[in-house]
C-alpha cells in the first residue's frame, strides 16, 4: 500500500472513532433534554402558585417591604449568571456570558456598582481568566439542579439584598440565564428579580385581567410577605437553573449533531481521496508493468536479429 493511501486510511479510522463518540454524546444529551424538560414542567405548579400568592399580598395590601420597594438611588446591583460546568455545548456559555457582560455594562452606565455571582465552572473560568471580581460562585450541580441547590445559591443573594447598601448590601438583583424555548431555540435572557415589579408579576400570573380577592392574612401581611419573598426568589432561581440545564443539554445535542454530521462528511471526502489515491497507485502499477514488458519485448526483439 502506498504511503498516501495509508495516511488517508488512518485518518478515516480516527474520524470514524470521533463520529461514534459524538453520536453517543448526542444521544445522551437528547435523553437528558427530555428529563430536564420534565423537571421544568414539574416545578411549574409551585412557581405559579407562589407567584399568585406574591401578587395577592403585593397588590392586596399596602405593606412596604425592602424586597418590593425600589431604592431612590440604587448604587449597587447583584448579577447572577447561570452557566454550565462543562462545555461542548456550542455557543451556550458564551451567549450567557455575553448577555451578562452587556447587562453589567448597562448597569455600570447607569452609575451602579455590579457584584457578580456565578453558577457553573465555565462562567467562573471566563471571569477568573480576565481577573474580574466574582463575589461568590457555585458549581457541580448544573446538569441536574435540585431545589436544595437553588436555596444554596439564593441564600447569600437574599442576605445581600436585605443588608443596607452602605454596609455592602445590594439594591437590585438581576439574573442572566438561558431560557428554554424549544429543542431548537434557547435564548440568553436577563431579568430583574428584585425589587419586584408587581404589575409585571401580576400580568404574568393572572393573565386576562382576573381580579384577585381580598385575602385575610395569617398572621399578618408583613409576616406573610417576609416569608413569601425569599421563597419566591428561590423558586425563580430554581426555575432559571432548570431551564438553563435543559438549554445546555439541547445546545450539546445540537453541537454534537453537527459534529457527527461533519465527521460523516469528512469520512466521505476522505474515502473519495483514498479511492483516488488507490486508483492512481493501480494506474501507475499498470503503466509500470506495461512499460516494463514493452522494454523487455523490445530487448528480446533486438536479440533475435
Amino acid at each position, binding site marked *: 500500500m502506498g504511503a498516501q493511501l495509508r495516511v488517508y486510511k488512518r485518518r478515516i479510522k480516527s474520524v470514524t472513532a470521533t463520529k461514534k463518540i459524538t453520536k453517543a454524546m448526542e444521544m445522551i444529551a437528547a435523553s437528558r433534554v427530555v428529563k430536564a424538560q420534565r*423537571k421544568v414542567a*414539574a*416545578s411549574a*405548579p*409551585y412557581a405559579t*402558585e*407562589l407567584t*399568585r*400568592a406574591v401578587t*395577592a*399580598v403585593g397588590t392586596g395590601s399596602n405593606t412596604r417591604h425592602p424586597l418590593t420597594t425600589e431604592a431612590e438611588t440604587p448604587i449597587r446591583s447583584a448579577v447572577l449568571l447561570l452557566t454550565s460546568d462543562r462545555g461542548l455545548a456550542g455557543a451556550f456559555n458564551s451567549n450567557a456570558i455575553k448577555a451578562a457582560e452587556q447587562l453589567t455594562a448597562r448597569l455600570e452606565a447607569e452609575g451602579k456598582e455590579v457584584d457578580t455571582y456565578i453558577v457553573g465552572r465555565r462562567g467562573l473560568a471566563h471571569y477568573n481568566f480576565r481577573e474580574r471580581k466574582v463575589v461568590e460562585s457555585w458549581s457541580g450541580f448544573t446538569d441536574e439542579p*435540585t*431545589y436544595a441547590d*437553588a*436555596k444554596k445559591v439564593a441564600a447569600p443573594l437574599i442576605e445581600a439584598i436585605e443588608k443596607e447598601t452602605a454596609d455592602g448590601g445590594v439594591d437590585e438583583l438581576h439574573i442572566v440565564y438561558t431560557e428554554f424555548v424549544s429543542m431548537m431555540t434557547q435564548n440568553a435572557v436577563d431579568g430583574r428579580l428584585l425589587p419586584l415589579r408587581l404589575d409585571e408579576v401580576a400580568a404574568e400570573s393572572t393573565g386576562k385581567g382576573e381580579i*384577585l*380577592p*381580598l*385575602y*385575610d*392574612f*395569617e*398572621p399578618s401581611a408583613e*409576616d*406573610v410577605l417576609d*416569608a*413569601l419573598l425569599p*421563597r419566591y426568589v*428561590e*423558586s425563580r432561581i*430554581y426555575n432559571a437553573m432548570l431551564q438553563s440545564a435543559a438549554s445546555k443539554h439541547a445546545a450539546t445535542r445540537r453541537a454534537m449533531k453537527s459534529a457527527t454530521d461533519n465527521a460523516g462528511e469528512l469520512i466521505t471526502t476522505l474515502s473519495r481521496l483514498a479511492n483516488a489515491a488507490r486508483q492512481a497507485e493501480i494506474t501507475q502499477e499498470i503503466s509500470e508493468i506495461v512499460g516494463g514488458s514493452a522494454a523487455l519485448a523490445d530487448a528480446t526483439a533486438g536479440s533475435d536479429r
Partner: protein
Amino acid sequence: MAAAELHVELVAADRQVWSGEATLVVARTTSGDIGVMPGHQPLLGVLESGPVTIRTSDGGTVVAAAHGGFISFADNKLSLLAEIAELADEIDVQRVERELERAKAEGDASAERRADVRLRAVAAR
C-alpha cells in the same frame, strides 16, 4: 350556600404531591392550627412544619408532612405550597426513625425537626 367541597392542590417545589376535592383541610400556621372548609374567606397564611390533614370528599383522609410553606385559599381553591412535602403513605417509618436517631446524635436540630414532622404525619394517618 357555598359548594360542598373545595379543590386542593398540594405542591412541593419540584413536583405536585396531591390534588383533588376535599371537604376539610387542617394545617398548622405560625399562629396555630387552622381548618378550612368550603366557602372560607380568602386566606393567605404561613405554614409551620407539621402534618397537613385533608379530608377528601369521598370520606378518605390524606395526611402529608409539609416542611414550611404557605396556605392560600380563594374561590374554593386551596393551595398548599411547601418546599418539601410528602404524603404519609410515602414515608418510610424505619428510615425516618434512623434519621431521627442520627440527627439527635449529631445535634442537627433542623434534621431532627424534619424527621419529627414526618413521624407525626405518619402517626396522624
